[in-house]
């Protein structure tokens, strides 16, 4: 897939659908450059009961492996903090530290020493939470940490893009403290009253696994897509269990500490999450022939036209809209076919 499509799409969407301030905001963050690096910090807190312990561990390790396998991360770019660090299970070698204050501080300090401007850091919190509002805490080994304290720790990353996926119980108050301009924060619960252990985390990881969450088929998963995938599956899970949902995930990416339950193009939140990808953009234009580059440029132009038209859908009569959309999409399909033919690899691996 052309690597710059998503950015173009986003910019095109901006032209028509969002406010100037949101546009400015989005223009400054999550620029998705091929030369940036993406880091992940997975923090698994201590668990109550063996079942929870097993579940949190399995989530954390799966996440680690999926990021490494499918999204270009490595042990250098993933930091895994696990409970008290004592681990006698397969995969324990992935553990980098302890989920206590000191461990977290050390990990973030080490990370700060390595990151460059424009890098992206995604922090996954797995475990239990407790309390409400400013006293809401992520349960770690030793004294628990409040959202405000954790936010202070993150302040040092003022030149990086930050995503926090807080999947703990009672995560709302903690997550709200982390809200900040240019930051994407996901909370698996929407209010302090949602105190039971959520199932959200499992589905969020499932969204990343095999790129299940890739809704727009560009072979990449954005934070928004993963969120939507997990949210839909959580709802279905409770429905199948015949239970009232005790968790409702929300997303905030405009820094107002107000979490949208259905973030998206026409909502207050979702614009940054849509361009915040799990993986790093790959520049795949190297080695292309002039014809292929021209085709690619045409494809990008056509995609941009599709997004612009889609953004102006309300201005069209239904039939006119689809007529124009069909024309664009047929042309795009033909351009793609041409590009594929131009870049088809021969049996001996030479690009034509």
């Amino acid at each position: 897939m052309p690597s710059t499509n998503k950015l173009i799409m986003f910019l095109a969407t901006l032209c028509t659908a969002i406010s100037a301030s949101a546009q400015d905001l989005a223009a400054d963050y999550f620029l998705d450059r091929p030369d940036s690096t993406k880091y992940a910090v997975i923090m698994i807190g201590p668990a109550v009961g063996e079942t929870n312990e097993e579940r949190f561990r399995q989530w954390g390790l799966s996440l680690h492996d999926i990021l490494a396998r499918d999204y270009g991360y490595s042990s250098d770019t993933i930091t895994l903090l696990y409970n008290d660090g004592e681990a006698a299970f397969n995969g324990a070698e992935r553990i980098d530290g302890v989920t206590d204050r000191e461990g977290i501080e050390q990990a973030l300090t080490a990370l700060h020493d390595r990151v460059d401007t424009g890098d992206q850091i995604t922090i996954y919190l797995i475990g239990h939470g407790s309390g409400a509002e400013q006293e809401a805490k992520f349960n770690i080994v030793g004294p628990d940490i409040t959202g405000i304290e954790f936010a202070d720790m993150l302040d040092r990353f003022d030149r990086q893009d930050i995503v926090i996926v807080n999947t703990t119980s009672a995560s709302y108050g903690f997550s709200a403290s982390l809200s900040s301009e240019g930051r994407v924060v996901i909370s698996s619960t929407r209010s302090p009253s949602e105190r039971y252990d959520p199932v959200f985390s499992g589905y969020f990881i499932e969204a990343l696994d095999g790129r299940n969450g890739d809704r727009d088929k560009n072979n990449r998963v954005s934070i928004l897509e993963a969120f939507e995938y997990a949210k839909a599956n959580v709802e279905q899970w409770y429905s199948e269990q015949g239970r009232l949902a005790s968790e409702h995930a929300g997303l905030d990416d405009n820094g107002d500490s107000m979490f949208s339950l259905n973030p998206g193009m026409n909502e207050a939140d979702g614009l940054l999450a849509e361009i915040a990808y799990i993986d790093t953009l790959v520049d795949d234009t190297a080695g292309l022939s002039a014809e292929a580059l021209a085709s690619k440029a045409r494809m990008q132009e056509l995609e941009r036209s599709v997004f612009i038209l889609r953004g102006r859908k309300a201005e069209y009569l239904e039939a006119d809209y689809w007529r124009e959309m069909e024309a664009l999409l047929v042309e795009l399909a033909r351009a793609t076919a041409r590009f594929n033919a131009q870049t088809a690899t021969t049996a001996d691996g030479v690009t034509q």
Partner: protein
Amino acid sequence: MRNSLRSIIACILVLAPLSAAYAQDDQDQAGDSALFRAEQLLLSGSYAAAAEMFQMTDGLDRTDGLIGASRAYFMTGNYQQAESVVADAIEGDDYARFPLLSTQLAEIKRAVGESAEALAIFEAVMEGLPEPPVRTLVQYGSLLQFKGQRSDAYRILDMAVQRYNSGLVFTSEDVAMVALASWLMGNFYDANSLFDEATRANPNNLEAHALWADLFLEKYNASDAERGYQEALEINNRYVPALVGIARVVGDERSLQRALAINPNSIPALETYAQLLMMNGREDEAMAYFTQVLALNPESLKTLSILAAQAALNERMDEYVNYYEQVQAFSPGNAQFLGDIADAFGNNYRFTEAVAYARAALEADPEYWQGYTLLGNNLIRLGEEEEGKANLEIGFENDPFNVLTSNMLKVFDTLETYATLESEHFKVHMSERDADILWPYLEPLLEEAWDTLTEKYAYEPEGPILIEVFENSEDFAVRSVGLPDIGPLVGICFGKVVTLISPDTLTANWQEIVWHEFMHVITLQMTDNRMPRWLSEGISVWEEREGRPYWGRDQGLDLVRAADQGKLLPVADLNSGFSGARNNADLSFAYFQSYLVVDYIASQYGFDKLVELVKQYAFIKEDSERFSEVFAMDIGEFDAGFRGWIDQRVEEINVYVHTEDVPDEGEGHGHGIRENSSAILAELYNNASLKQHMRSRIEENPRDFQAYLQLGIVLFKEEAFEEARSYLETAHEMLPSYTGYPSPALVLSQIYEREGNREMQLQWLEQLLENLQHDYGSAMILAEAALEAGNMERVSYYIDRALQVDPYRQDVHLLKARYADTINDTQLAVTEYEVLMKLEITDPVEARTNLAEAYLNNGQLSEAKQNVLYALEQAPSFQRAQQLLLDAVDKEAAQ
């Protein structure tokens, strides 16, 4: 029950303790006077002592004392004494001079069926007194209404209300009377507020508490009614009206027994007891109670309406006319009497007649608001939705307190969001989701049921049959019975209308339910809805097994248990198995035994005899006569034959049922999983002691099926597979048709799965599904395996089995779509991808693209193109969709 309330108001009023109402008001001044002490005794339920003490009053307290004594006597059923104690004090029958004593006397006379005398007393008071007491006005107004003099009644009742509006009503008792006046005038909000005021003014006003609760009960507001009665009983746990009220709300027989122990002549208690007996099929005993009621009060409207309804239901029309004329004589044009008849017909599924009686009630009194609810409700059950709704709206507009009416109307709001679909013989209301997902499978099933069963019974019901599929079980319950709690039922047939809970809300085999309910359509319509429940259910369950060999109920263990415990009911009493069921297990067995009787008839006498028996119910006659005509023997002889057949069946089953094991408990009213409660309970025990116990049980009785099964389960959990297999195979051989969960076949399949022996695992799953209709997971495993093996016939079969349990899961539709692709059935592929599109929540682009491809393969170019455009609109760079678009456009151009 609801229509009985107004008819007993008179009784309740007489029973009400005036002195209780006065107790608080007078307490401060009275000190420990005889009146005060008597009132305390009355309030505490010491009626005999209270009567004695009241009679010790003198001076200014004398009138109150005599009224109190009369009420105390009344409370214990000593109506004669209650009457004489006040009558003797009215010198020269000068009623106007003694208005309160006269009012009490008139109330008693009304309560014992002397309404004409009561009316004369009230008239004398009214003529001789310019400002009669509030109680006199209200009781007089109430009686006038009873006597059919509605405009006079309204005028008198309004006088009481106006007196309240003028600020001249002070005591709690009088406020309660004004509340009653408002109620009788149809001003239910006012009545509610005034009862509130009366009970606040004097929390010990038992009469107000009970009347207020009666109002709630009339409006089907059971929880508030119960609360009101309980509040009265907390003050006086011997207060008969509240004891009877509680029995009416919760069907508590003990409350009635207690009420009758206090007052053996309590007319409401006797009537309620008789109704309970009738519901349990004990009609002879019920009749004895009704006779007793009429001896006490020959003008008891409730009893007369019940007896008249019984006569009309059994087409003894001379008898009905006789009752009708009796009522006409003392209460001409009584709409409630006709409403009660309508209600009785409706409760007996005779909706056409119910509608006719409800119309007659409304003709008698167009302001009988409950009549509109009755009419609307019964019209809906006949499928006349529009007229039904219009009548409910009239009822609601004038009586918004009526919970039944408002509930029914709320369901119409739900139905407005539903889709209406039609097939050749059916009209179906269902949610949009069900219309998308369920309808493709429901439609062919309905028509198959129609074709199969109409041909088999040589009877074509009047159609179209209206099927309503509710996603919300409360809507289902309200639509079915008017109230939001219907217990475990999952489908109800009214003859031309069937209500169902959506399979999306169930864990059961929905196809079996549909088949079962449609069978009711035939038997009910064949007999003009006169089928007894046992036979109707018995045939419907029997036809389940005829419909599909794996449908139906195998309750061998329950049968052996019932035979051991002597719990099999005589055929003549089978209906009581339903009406008297104390729990789900009882109800489940009532279905099963009814099925057994039908199976017995079909196997021993032939199917034609079964149909003959059904046809017998189209006519009014005794069961003994029916059985005699069809089987040439009396019902007792038939029953003996059935018992012999059952004994033989039990012998053939040949398993031992240990007394410590409990019956399996099922979901979905017999159409869902039946959990093996014994095995589940056994999990609480320590494995070693459980094994030891089960081994000793087997030693004691080598045919102890449950012991083998439980031992097998424990050994399986301990991974002693070889030994577990041996016990489980023995259990399976013993009772191969056992369908509880877990069953020997299921655990055996799990053993083989753990051992990696897929062939044997599948073999046992196949065994399992031969008798089990509601196992989704096993059907899916077998379908996948059949697809791998290329056995398309079995793939189709097992996919269908899975869909019968849960048509809302993506995996079964994905599998069916794969199957369709494999056999090149492009139309089927389209159906499945259409369903998948509706079910998809996480990857709509992929689902759209799949659907577009299915359309393209099926030659539906325009649908293909539109769907792929939808997909590409969201994901323009999705290359598979792009290719499909180009294919669609090229094919379009080629056309």
